[in-house]
C-alpha cells in the first residue's frame, strides 16, 4: 500500500507544483538581494539574510527560515488535508476499502507518504536554494578566509563539513515539526469529505497557535502550542548547539503525532463511509 501511495504522490502534478512554488519564494528573494545589493542590517530581516550576502552556502538556512513559518505548513496542510478527504471527494475511498485495503493500513500509508512528501519538499528547497545562493553570492572564501566556511550565529567559524552536518540536523528537526502539524491535518482529513475544509481547519490551528504565541497571557500553555518550538532549528547554527529547545520541540511534536494519529485512527476505523 505504501508503494501505491508513493506512486500517487509521484504521479500527482499538484505535488510538484507545490514544491516548485516553495522553491520560488527564496529564489525570488535571492535574486532581489543580489540585484539590489541591499542587505538587511544584521539582526533584522529574515534569519541569516544579512550573512547570506557574503556567503551563498548559508542561503539554504535563510531559505528554510523564509518558507517555514507560512509556506511550508501551507503546503503540508493542503497535502495532508487531501489524504483521506481527497479520496472521499473523488469517490475512490470506497473502492480502495472494498478492494480491500484495511483502514489502518491505508491511514498508516498516508502518514508515511506525508513524511516522504515533507522530506522531499524540504530537501528540494535546500538543494535549489544552495544552488541559487552559491551562484549569486559565491561561497564567501574572501570573507572568512576559508572556502565554504561560515560564521555561526554565535560568532565562531564553521567549516563546510560541520555546516553540512548541522544543516542536515536542522532539516531533520523541521521535518519532524512539519510532520507533527501534518498529522493534525491528517486527523481533520478523516473528519471531513472535503479536502479543502480539512486543509483550512489545520491552517486555522496554525494561525490560532501563532496568535497565542504573541500573547503574554497565554504563557502557561505556550510550551504545548504546536508552533512553539518550530524556529528552534536555528539553534543548530549556534556554537555550541543549544539543545534545550530542540529536545523539547522533538518531544512535543512526537506527542502531537501520537495523539492526532491515534485520534485519526480511532475516527477513521469506526466511521461509516458514505462518500
Amino acid at each position: 500500500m505504501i508503494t501505491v501511495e508513493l506512486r500517487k504522490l509521484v504521479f500527482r502534478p499538484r505535488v510538484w507544483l507545490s514544491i516548485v512554488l516553495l522553491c520560488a519564494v527564496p529564489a525570488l528573494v535571492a535574486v532581489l538581494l543580489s540585484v539590489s545589493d541591499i542587505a538587511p542590517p544584521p539582526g533584522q530581516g529574515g534569519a541569516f539574510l544579512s550573512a547570506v550576502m557574503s556567503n551563498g552556502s548559508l542561503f539554504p538556512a535563510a531559505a528554510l527560515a523564509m518558507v517555514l513559518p507560512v509556506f511550508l505548513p501551507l503546503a503540508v496542510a493542503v497535502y495532508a488535508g487531501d489524504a483521506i478527504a481527497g479520496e472521499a471527494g473523488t469517490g475512490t475511498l470506497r473502492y480502495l476499502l472494498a478492494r480491500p485495503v484495511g483502514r489502518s493500513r491505508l491511514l498508516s500509508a498516508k502518514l508515511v507518504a506525508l513524511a516522504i512528501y515533507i522530506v522531499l519538499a524540504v530537501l528540494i528547497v535546500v538543494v535549489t536554494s544552495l544552488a541559487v545562493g552559491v551562484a549569486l553570492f559565491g561561497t564567501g572564501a574572501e570573507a572568512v578566509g576559508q572556502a565554504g566556511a561560515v560564521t555561526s550565529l554565535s560568532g565562531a567559524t564553521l567549516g563546510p563539513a560541520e555546516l553540512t552536518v548541522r544543516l542536515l540536523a536542522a532539516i531533520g528537526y523541521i521535518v519532524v515539526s512539519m510532520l507533527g502539524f501534518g498529522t493534525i491535518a491528517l486527523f481533520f482529513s478523516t473528519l471531513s469529505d472535503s479536502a479543502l475544509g480539512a486543509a483550512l481547519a489545520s491552517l486555522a490551528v496554525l494561525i490560532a497557535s501563532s496568535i497565542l504565541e504573541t500573547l503574554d497571557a497565554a504563557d502557561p500553555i505556550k510550551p504545548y502550542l504546536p508552533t512553539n518550538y518550530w524556529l528552534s532549528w536555528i539553534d543548530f547554527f549556534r556554537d555550541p548547539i543549544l539543545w534545550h529547545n530542540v529536545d523539547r520541540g522533538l518531544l512535543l511534536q512526537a506527542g502531537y503525532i501520537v495523539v492526532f494519529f491515534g485520534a485519526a485512527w480511532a475516527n477513521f476505523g469506526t466511521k461509516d463511509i458514505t462518500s
Partner: protein
Amino acid sequence: MIVTRGLTKRYGRVVAVDGVDLDVREGDRYGFLGPNGSGKTTLVRLLLGLVYATSGEIEVLDMRMPARSRAVLQQIGALVEGPSAYPHLSGRQNLALLDAAGPGGRRRSRKGRIEDALEQVGLAGVDRRPVRAYSLGMRQRLGLAAALLREPRLLILDEPTNGLDPRGIREIRDLLTRLNEAGTTVFLSSHLLSEVEQLCTRVGIVDRGRLVVQESLSTLQAPTGHVLVDTPDAARVATILDGQVISRDGERLVIRHPDPAALNATLVGEGIRVSAIGEQRRTLEDVVLEVTGHGNDRVARP
C-alpha cells in the same frame, strides 16, 4: 452467498435499512429493486463493510461481515454509487493502482489482468488520455473493469448500466449473463425495472428500507388466471361469456378463464373473429407499484 438477518441501519433518526432478511443464493442473478432513496445503496455499503450495521447480522460467502471483511472482499467485485477514478491518471494507471493496493495476485500478471478486464468491458483499445477526459459511459465501463479485475465469485453492482446507451446496456447485460453462466453470482441493485426484468432470475423489492418481496422472477410473473382477448366483435363476446368478462376496453377484453386455447376454440366456434389471445401475466411493474410507495425524491404538499 449473501444472507442477512434483521439487518438495520440508522443514520440519526432516519432508518435507512429496516430489518432486512436478504437471501441471495449461489448462481443467482439477483435483482434488488426499489424507488430512489429506499435504502438500496446503504444496503450495498453494509454488505461491503463500508458502513456498520446498527443491528442484525450479515453473512457474505458464508463468512461474517464485517469481521472477516478481508477474506470476503477479496472475492467480491463491486460498483457502488457510480464509478470513481483518479481523474489525472489514465484508465490503465487507475486499474494498476487499484490492483496493487489490495492483497492477492502476482505483480507479474497484473498487466494481463488489466488487459483482460478492459477487453471484457469493451475498453481494450483505450489510449493514455486521463480519466478526466472520459465520457460517462467510458467511466462506467472502467468502473466495471475495476470490479472484474480480480475475477470475483460475487459481483455487487449498483446501477451498472447508468450512463450507457442502449447498445452499451445490451453489451453489459450479455457480459453479466456470460459471467453468471461461468459461475459468478450477480447481485444487481437498480431502480430500472427493465434492467432487472431482462437480466435477473430472482428479485428483491425494497421500500422505505424494508424488504417487501423476495421471490423468483418467474413466480412474480405468474399467470393471473385471466385471458386477454383482442377482437372486433367485443360486444358479442360480452353477451356470450356473460359473467366471465372482467373488463372491456374497446376491442380488448379481460376474461376470467384458465386456458386461452380452450377459450379460443369456444370463441371461434361461436363465429367470433379473434385477432389476438393470450394469458395475462403480471408484469414486474405491476408488482413493484403494488408493494412500494413513492420514492423520497417526490415531495408532495402534506
